């Protein structure tokens, strides 16, 4: 039951962010679906391995992969699908906790939260880049096979 609620809520969030960022009207639903898949992978991974940094990497990887496939299929820039999806993974809570502890003069705890937030955003970035490199390799391979099969 929680999974269904999480899926619905993450879909609604990605959909609303697509509205705020003014995505093309026909693509709002696919933006929502990209965000949902990213969040579900993130929460499953976080549940299994108990490591939110790795989970963020996995979530961002899936978001970028889905965005890439959609952008090739619909002939639109990839950024349209990846931006609303990535918002769900942004470590808002960690950054907030870091800020709160700084205000309370508890700098040691603040630094540990801030480093975690920094690691998480780095993981998101790595996930995005890895997915992109992977997709480029796959497309290059497919194109090569296509030209070879046409020649023979």
């Amino acid at each position, binding site marked *: 039951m929680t999974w269904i*609620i*999480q899926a619905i*809520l*993450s879909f*609604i*969030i990605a*959909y*609303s*962010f*697509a*509205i*705020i*960022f*003014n*995505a*093309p*009207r026909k*693509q709002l639903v696919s933006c929502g679906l990209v965000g949902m898949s990213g*969040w579900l992978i993130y929460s499953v991974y976080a549940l299994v391995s108990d490591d939110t940094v790795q989970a963020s990497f996995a979530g961002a990887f899936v978001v970028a992969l889905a965005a890439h496939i959609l952008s090739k299929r619909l*002939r*639109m*820039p990839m*950024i*349209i699908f*990846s*931006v*609303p999806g*990535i*918002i*769900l993974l*942004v470590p*808002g*809570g960690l*950054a*907030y*906790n*870091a*800020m*709160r502890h*700084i*205000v*309370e003069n508890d700098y040691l705890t603040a630094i540990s939260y801030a480093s975690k937030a920094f690691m998480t*955003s780095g993981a*998101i*970035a790595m996930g*995005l*880049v890895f997915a*992109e490199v992977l997709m480029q390799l796959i497309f290059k391979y497919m194109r090569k096979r296509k030209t070879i099969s046409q020649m023979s």
Partner: protein
Amino acid sequence: MLNEKNDLAIDCCLLAGRLMIESGAETYRVEDTMTRMAISQGLIGTQSYITPTGIIFSLGKDGSTRIMTIRLRITDLERIALVNQISRKLTSLEMTIEEAYEELQRIASANLMFPMLWQIIAASIASGCFLILFEGTWWDVPAALVAGGFGFIVVTLIHELTRVKFFAEFLAATVVGFIAFLAVLFSVGEDLNTIIISGVMPLVPGLLITNAVRDLMAGHFVSGVSKGAEALLTAFAIGAGVALVLSF
């Protein structure tokens, strides 16, 4: 005649580049689009240098060089998609350069954004949903809805009024924190922290963060670092706004 044609092609490329950067496209994609458009018009060997604040575009050894300043930076994904479509049509020769220029100018002057009310409602709903995803209780949802909506209203209004983005974000974060504080004070909400976190989520610079890294990876260090700095400043403004409320 030849010069006139070249001039139009440069204008077209620059306008397309400006629109894409203003709307928040990745730098390497802008460069790619401009080069493709130039090649479709028979201009080989063009050079472009693109930063978030300006474009330098040159035709090469014998041609002219132009500069375009960029003052405005928003997030408008639909505009990126439209410019992309035009560039595709131009390179596949479905469109002449004159038509493309006219179309680009139409896009530049049109307002494609969703109505303001929709955006506010979207921000408010997103905040409410975030609250549940951050393991808050259903009891706190109304407070998060109000905080998120008002935060978004404030950031838009102040940004239009003062044109200082960081001040607008600072004030918006303060308002979010204040509403959450009031909600807890009048026992409409329970957990102050989750309400504030979900309330500020619509202000988070998601596009900037993703773009900064992708630009850095593509070797556009100037754009990557400056976008990263903008994202960092925004995050700092939000943090300072929240901290102001928390320190009372």
